[in-house]
């Protein structure tokens, strides 16, 4: 009885959008970790994680964000989160993630945060 989890990546201008769907737990987190690691290895450090269809996250999933956030920022990018459902957001909130991560209501707004940063440069 394995609940589905899937990942889809696409470009949104200069930003890479990673859409994660379903249940992100200790069983499925390694898939997500591999995708983020691969993006960073390929030099794509401006990432938006689209959480529109993310139904569940446990610490294993949260750990992926924690593992890579510094690396992405040090490379001049960021890992931004977008469109988190309230039931999932409460978990991020309990751990104080909103103070540490850039969380936006929509993918477009998250992408725009990168564009805005680029304009200032």
């Amino acid at each position, binding site marked *: *009885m*394995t*609940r589905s989890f899937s990942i889809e990546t696409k470009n949104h201008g200069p930003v890479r959008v990673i859409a994660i769907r379903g*249940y992100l*737990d*200790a*069983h499925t987190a390694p898939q997500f970790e591999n995708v983020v690691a691969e993006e960073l290895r390929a030099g794509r450090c401006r990432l938006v994680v689209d959480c529109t269809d993310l139904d*569940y996250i*446990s*610490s*294993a999933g*949260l*750990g*992926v964000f*924690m*593992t890579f*956030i*510094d690396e992405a920022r040090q490379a001049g990018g960021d890992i931004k989160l977008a469109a988190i459902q309230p*039931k999932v957001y*409460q*978990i991020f909130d*309990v*751990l*104080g*993630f909103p103070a*540490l991560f850039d969380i936006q209501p929509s993918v477009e707004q998250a992408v725009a945060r990168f564009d805005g940063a680029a304009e200032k440069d």
Partner: protein
Amino acid sequence: MASYERTFCLQVPSSTENLALIREFVAAIGEQAGFSENETARLALAVDEACTNVIEHAYENEATHEVTVRVTVDEDEIVFEVIDRGKGFDPTQAPVLPVEELIRQRRSGGLGLRLIRSIMDDVQYRIVPGEKNELKMIKKRRAGGAGGADAARPAQG
């Protein structure tokens, strides 16, 4: 003393593949016991975290063992016991570091425990040497609120 008590038990192989099954088990009981959807989701998360710790640390990701989740519901509280026979590790003695510090150290290990502690009212750990390790997590019902005793009292009154 509680006037009624119901116990449910689930035993599954120690693989993360079964975390979804464990969450559904906990959610079904939480719902039946009258906890709200949000509360039930948090209870399922806490038990997921406890079982993940067992699978990854007590059993070091060997799927050939068993994890037992025992749930007892009464008028006052819901009690979860996660039982294993692996390497004992008392998570209640582990330091709870700020998330910023965990990021600095690239450690996500402390997050699950933070979640368990923030969700549950009481967390206890017991090692019975040579027999079992048991993490007991207690969630009190809120008086008069969602998940209150009235919501779950059997209909016969």
